[in-house]
């Protein structure tokens, strides 16, 4: 097994902020996200030989992180997101500042998306990947990513419009969602 180069280590270090951001987006939980990043770094280190220098390291790492996330989720029977993640959001304090409240609403809306849509819209709209790269990371067709992004965007618009009518937080939103569902 070839030794890991110093440059590889430096590049891994540099990628950590992005990996953490992606991990939080997937898990919706800061502690689980950091565990996931740790697993990803260990895996990346172990299989550094399969990384081709000159190709996109960030995309390679995101692929590892994503695979790790889904394999953990399968092992735990999907409790990863459903219990802890949403609990954290409910316990979150209401910040006094205007813009932050907005972002909190957005976070809540993002959390309501199915994972596949959420990861797609994050990869394209925030992490700066192309549709082709995102498709590679998620192991699916470019068209699938496009449709997931589009559905995610539509859903976010719907949710945020609902929350925009009433600014009193998650309870008001869920009451409205329930109201809509009863039609």
């Amino acid at each position, binding site marked *: *097994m*070839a*030794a*890991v*180069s*110093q440059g590889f*280590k430096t590049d*891994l*270090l540099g990628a*950590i*902020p*992005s990996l*953490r*951001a992606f991990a*939080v*987006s997937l898990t919706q939980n800061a502690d689980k996200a*950091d565990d996931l*990043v*740790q697993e990803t*770094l*260990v895996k990346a*280190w172990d299989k550094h030989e399969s990384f081709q220098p000159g190709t996109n390291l960030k995309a390679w790492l995101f692929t590892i992180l994503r695979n790790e996330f889904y394999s953990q989720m399968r092992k735990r029977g999907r409790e990863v997101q459903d219990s802890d993640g949403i609990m954290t959001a409910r316990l979150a304090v209401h910040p006094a500042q205007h813009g932050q409240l*907005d*972002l909190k609403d*957005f*976070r809540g809306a*993002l959390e309501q998306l199915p994972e596949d849509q959420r990861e797609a*819209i*994050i990869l*394209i*709209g*925030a*992490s700066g990947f192309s549709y082709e790269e995102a498709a590679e990371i998620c192991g699916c067709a470019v068209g699938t990513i496009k449709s997931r*992004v*589009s559905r995610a*965007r539509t859903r*976010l*618009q719907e949710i*945020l419009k609902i929350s925009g009518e009433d600014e009193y937080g998650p309870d008001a939103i869920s009451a409205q969602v329930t109201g809509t569902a009863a039609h």
Partner: protein
Amino acid sequence: MKDMTKDILAGAEGRRRNGVGDPLGPNSEIGRKLKQYYDELVSDDVPDRFAQLLSQLEQAEPAQKKD
């Protein structure tokens, strides 16, 4: 009718290149919020545990001698 659709699509493509009309671009509320959400996460301080982890991995398997 077909030509018109083509024109509209071509226009959309041009706007997309300029970042205007990009469904997740700077003119989209969702796009802006997404970036705000993500940038905040990216700029979060990285805990020491990760640098320590990489050092441990490196000690377990020393890096290549300087080339």
